[in-house]
């Protein structure tokens, strides 16, 4: 019995980690900055590729993962300066532009690096509970997801940069008038979102097949989680990930993967219908009424 209960919790933690890690970067870029970033999956791919390449060079995994996240962050800053910066006033055009970037990057990767990339292998071994054995690394992924949530919260609520970033996103001209270097804030915030996406790729790199289009596996889950979370990223993403993970885990356990997949999408529709402003809108209202 204990094994069964642990198994259910483990499954839930696994789905939750996937949703949160996939969505964290997008929550900042799309949720906060309003850029519909179709190249989100490519930041994830970038993180995964760089991580694995560094592991092949003999670097310890954890440093390689930091390198992967960093590389994606730098790529994000470059993209912000060259493309995204001129599109803040036209969010729907940012969709088209980033989709174009995604095409160029995935196919460019295919031409340059080839159609596949040898993986590095999962570290940390396994542990046993009852009849089941579990991968230790996947528990680390869950902890990493919690860590990312805490990091985002602390960064935006407790640091000077966070205050500047929130001020800039809310009213850029006012922030500029108050002497903030909004261009820099935009670039850094976008880079941070990209780095978090890269971190997702870096963390999942040891467990997945590496191909140029691997980011596509994450993209639907990440958009869905962010949107169900609503406009306030700090408030919304975690409960959205929680709710969707519960629905998905239950359905997969009950009726297999396809039920989980279709069921989660239907749940998204119902949740948006009930909470037209996402979880954060609802939480915000609830907090105000307290």
């Amino acid at each position, binding site marked *: 019995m204990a094994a069964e209960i642990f198994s259910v919790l483990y499954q839930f933690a696994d789905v939750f980690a996937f949703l949160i890690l996939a969505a964290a970067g997008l929550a900042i870029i799309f949720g906060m900055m309003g850029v*519909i970033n179709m190249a989100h999956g490519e930041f994830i791919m970038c993180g995964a590729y760089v991580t694995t390449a560094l592991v092949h060079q003999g670097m310890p995994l954890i440093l390689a993962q930091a390198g992967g996240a960093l590389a994606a962050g730098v790529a994000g800053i470059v993209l912000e300066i060259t493309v995204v910066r001129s599109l803040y006033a036209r969010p729907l055009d940012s969709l088209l*532009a980033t989709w174009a*970037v*995604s095409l*160029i990057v995935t196919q460019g990767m*295919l031409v340059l690096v080839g159609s596949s990339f040898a993986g590095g292998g999962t570290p940390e071994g396994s542990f046993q509970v009852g009849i089941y054995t579990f991968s230790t690394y996947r528990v680390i992924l869950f902890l990493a997801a919690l860590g990312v949530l805490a990091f985002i919260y602390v960064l935006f609520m407790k640091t000077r940069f966070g205050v500047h970033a929130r001020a800039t996103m809310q009213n850029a001209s006012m922030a500029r008038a108050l002497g903030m270097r909004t261009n820099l804030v935009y670039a850094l915030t976008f880079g941070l979102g990209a780095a978090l996406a890269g971190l997702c790729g870096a963390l999942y790199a040891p467990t997945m097949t590496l191909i140029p289009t691997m980011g596509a596996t994450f993209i639907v889950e990440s*958009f869905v989680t962010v949107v169900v979370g609503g406009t306030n990223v700090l408030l919304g993403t975690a409960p959205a990930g929680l709710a969707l993970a519960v629905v998905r885990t239950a359905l997969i356990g009950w009726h297999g993967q396809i039920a989980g997949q279709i069921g989660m999408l239907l749940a998204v529709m119902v949740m948006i219908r009930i909470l*037209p402003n996402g979880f954060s809108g609802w939480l915000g209202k609830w907090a105000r009424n307290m």
Partner: protein
Amino acid sequence: MLSYINGPQTLGTGRGFWISFAVFCLVAIAYPFFADPYDVGNFAYFLLWIFMAMGLSIMWGYTGMLSFGQTFFFGIGGYGYGVLSILMGAEYGLTFLALLLAVGTAAVAALVFGYFMIYGRVTGVFFGIMTLSMTLALAYFLGQTAGPEWAIGKARLNGFNGMLGMPPLTIPWFGGDVEILDTTLYYFVIGLLFVIYFAVRILLNSPFGYVLVAIREDPERSELLGYDIRKYQIIAFIVGSALAALSGVLYTAWGQFITPSSVGLPAAAMPIVWVAFSGRRDITATTLGTFVLLLAFQTITIYSQQWALILMGALLLATVLFVPEGFVLGLARAARWATLRRRRAPIVEAEMRSEEA
């Protein structure tokens, strides 16, 4: 009614536009007489996607609702036509009944989903994700219909491998049925496009169309002015979705084949790309631009192998960065600027500025 053909909601109102429009139509009609039959069939194929783009232009460009659901209705139209035409057969012009019923089914589905979303006050990006969710759910559902239990009569949905065996559109004719393929299909689609283009222009320049644009510009103010904006939004959604279903029917009839890939990603993103590229706020730009883009993408794919996707991406990126109003509108403006400059250079700047405002 006809007076609504010209109006402020559609670009191209002057004599110059209508003269070039007439020339364009004549060229289109004459085209099969001097072109390779393959090219004619290929053009017919491009044209049949335009309805879906027009639908999105009405919803997104004019009413401000970004729908990722065009391929949802495309799929309902395509699969609907497949099932119905297999069940009813191709005699007595029944394929046309299948066409109408399939589009009708999609319209009813749009009414149901539209009611669910629009009357639930789902707007903006939430609307986009909701329509995306329903599209992907349909794609996943269709993908797992491989088994024999997923059949309606002798029409098997056949999962990921796709549905086969439906007849093309067929006209009953003296001395044997005529299948609408290649050149016949070309004329059929051109005719349909002509009719629907005018119908949409009339719709957009009518009082109804004014309200749509008002909703796009400011939904709250429109509501305060006394319009039940949800009624207008749902009608725009139904019209736009039905047009997507029409594309779906024509596509399925053209290739006698449809798969779930036509519904899911990345197919679902394509209409948005076409419309955004062309200039979503004008129906003529959407029509022309979609055709140009389809042609360009196919040509690039034929001639540049592995570099094709990179070139397409670069083309789109350049459009977004340098021609923000969309490719066709940008070209039109450039053309007008060039001609006007020759005639009365000093006024141009002011005119362009007033237009922007």
